[in-house]
């Protein structure tokens, strides 16, 4: 890997970069519409591709939270046109590594010793990049370890980075600043949380312990004595990145096994823990040679509030005999409907949401579900495409908790679709009883 030597220096410079991209995106639009005047049938794919590529080029020169936002955008395939997300998923592994002396310095600053004093072996070459840090291989007392080191200044620059990404996000999503403020706050809070490795250690340990009884899942053991806010030491888990596993064309049994583990992991968290690992990106999972799924990143964990959980899953699993008024009541609770809406609007949104929930809830409602069925995922995408074109849906709606709950579920669906797994979805289900 090439050592980093051209990371933007100042906020001003970063603003300039983003500004430059803004112009380029603008230019792409102009190009698109001028071509469209000549050829009215030209579709948006070219435009989206040109935009995605310029945005990606810019973001790859940034690090930290901007990269994270890129990652977030790449998750919501249903919301963003395909071209955006394909380009963005590249951003994951594009950050150049830190220099050797900075690694030593970070250790000395945060743990008071050099990595060589702490571990028996420590590989100065990063094994791979994480979005806001990099991972090194180490060992201690015969145990292989993964040591994640955060880039300096990441936590500090999140808010200012987000401010710069904002106008961009509005343009991409076509929403106004005030409408999105509450959602961006949610994202900002989560991103800041993600830079605290002490927090990640706690979350990883907690969820790992809680999921202990689930089959075919592996969680790393964490080492608090070699960790702190900027350095996280955990057991090194062997395995193939999930993306590579999928590309290796495993047989159907293996696909189903991995898919089942993934589904159980998420439905257990949603229904029993009310706490979810909210970053189901293929980069966060490994598959070992026995087909066990390892989860290696607990930076982003979302707590699902009880009232949100209840209303949301009541919509997904409506009890028999549920009438429209009850469905709407839950929609009001979830801020999908607003008391200020006129009857026509309520009618329109109710039918839109019912269609959406019908699509979204399919895997939850059947005992077994085949995610390989192309109809399901294209149904979701085309609904997403359709939704972005409806002017009424341009306004921001829904509780802020949707951001991470949706991101998790759509991310999960995406992976399961790529796995083409057939999964038994009934093991854990909506209930209003005590949580674990």
């Amino acid at each position, binding site marked *: 890997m090439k050592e*980093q030597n*051209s990371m933007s220096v100042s906020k001003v410079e970063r603003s300039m970069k983003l500004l430059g991209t803004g112009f380029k995106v603008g230019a792409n639009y102009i190009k698109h519409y001028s071509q469209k005047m000549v050829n009215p049938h030209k579709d948006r794919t070219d435009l989206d591709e040109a935009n995605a590529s310029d945005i990606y080029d810019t973001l790859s020169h940034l690090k930290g939270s901007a990269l994270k936002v890129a990652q977030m955008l790449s998750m919501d395939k249903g919301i963003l046109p395909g071209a955006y997300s394909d380009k963005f998923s590249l951003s994951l592994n594009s950050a150049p590594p830190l*220099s*050797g*002396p900075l690694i030593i*310095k970070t250790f000395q*600053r945060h743990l008071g010793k050099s990595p060589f004093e702490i571990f028996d072996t420590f590989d100065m070459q990063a094994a791979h990049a994480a979005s806001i840090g990099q991972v090194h291989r180490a060992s201690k007392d015969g145990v292989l370890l993964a040591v994640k080191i955060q880039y*300096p*200044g990441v936590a*500090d620059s999140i808010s200012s980075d987000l401010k710069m990404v904002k106008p961009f996000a509005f343009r991409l999503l076509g929403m106004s600043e005030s409408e999105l403020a509450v959602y961006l706050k949610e994202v900002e809070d989560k991103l800041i949380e993600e830079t605290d490795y002490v927090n990640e250690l706690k979350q990883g340990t907690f969820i790992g312990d809680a999921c202990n009884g689930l089959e075919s899942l592996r969680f790393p053991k964490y080492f608090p004595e070699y960790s702190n806010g900027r350095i996280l030491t955990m057991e090194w888990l062997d395995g193939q990145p999930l993306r590579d596993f999928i590309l290796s064309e495993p047989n159907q049994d293996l696909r189903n096994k991995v898919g089942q583990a993934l589904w159980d992991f998420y439905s257990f968290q949603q229904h029993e823990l009310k706490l979810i690992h909210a970053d189901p990106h293929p980069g966060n999972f490994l598959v070992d040679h026995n087909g066990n799924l390892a989860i290696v990143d607990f930076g982003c964990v979302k707590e699902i509030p009880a009232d949100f959980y209840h209303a949301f899953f009541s919509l997904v699993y409506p009890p028999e005999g549920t009438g429209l008024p009850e469905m709407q009541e839950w929609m009001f609770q979830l801020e999908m409907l607003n008391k200020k809406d006129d009857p026509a609007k309520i009618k329109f949104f109710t039918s839109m949401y019912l269609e959406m929930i019908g699509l979204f809830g399919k895997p939850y409602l059947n005992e077994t579900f085949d995610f390989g069925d192309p109809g399901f995922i294209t149904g979701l995408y085309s609904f997403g495409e359709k939704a972005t074109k409806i002017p009424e849906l341009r306004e921001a709606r829904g509780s802020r908790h949707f951001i991470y709950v949706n991101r998790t579920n759509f991310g999960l669906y995406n992976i399961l679709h790529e796995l083409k797994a057939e999964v038994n979805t009934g093991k854990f289900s909506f209930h209003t009883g005590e949580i674990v």
Partner: protein
Amino acid sequence: METSVRHKILDAYIDHLLMKGNQPTTVYAFCKELGIEEPEFYAHYATFAAIEQDVWMMHYEQTINKIKSLDLWPGYSVREKFLSFFFTYMEELQKKRSLYLVQIKQHRADLKLFTPVYLKKVKEAFELFSNELVKEGISTGEIKERTGITARYKDALWVQFIFLLNFWVNDDSPGFERTDEAIEKGVQVTLDLMSHSPLDNIVEYGKFIFKNAGKAF
């Protein structure tokens, strides 16, 4: 015996700076405070500035000793050696931030001139250190020898030194993480410029065009 008085003066001076936040008004007052005779002071230091030079020099030498004793040092590239120097230097400065800030702030304008009095000795030592590493870099091919410019590399590195010191003085980020970033990025760029770069090709091309000016048009 000699050195112990020197040390005593140095310690007392540091203590004075830290407690009072400025230089003693006169050598006389300082000596009285310390309980020594003025001639005794002048036997070791001609001015207060000379003491400050020693303070900074001690810190510089500590840094050099520390990095050169690292197991990794011999294996480092020249780039990494400079990075390691600056990281360690700043880390050490940080441990006594108030002491160094007092001195820097007393001679605020000096830092803009690139050779503050208190850094006179450090500058000489750092230039030797830089030249040594530049030579090493040239022999390994990491740094490109450029006639007439190679000798100025040390100046560029000194500018970097002063820039980082300034940056650190004004850094208000938690744990001075911004300074770490400034070192990481700044040193990389400086070393990039010193290694073979597109600039060389541009200069070469310029020379060629200049010599063959008549042919192109």
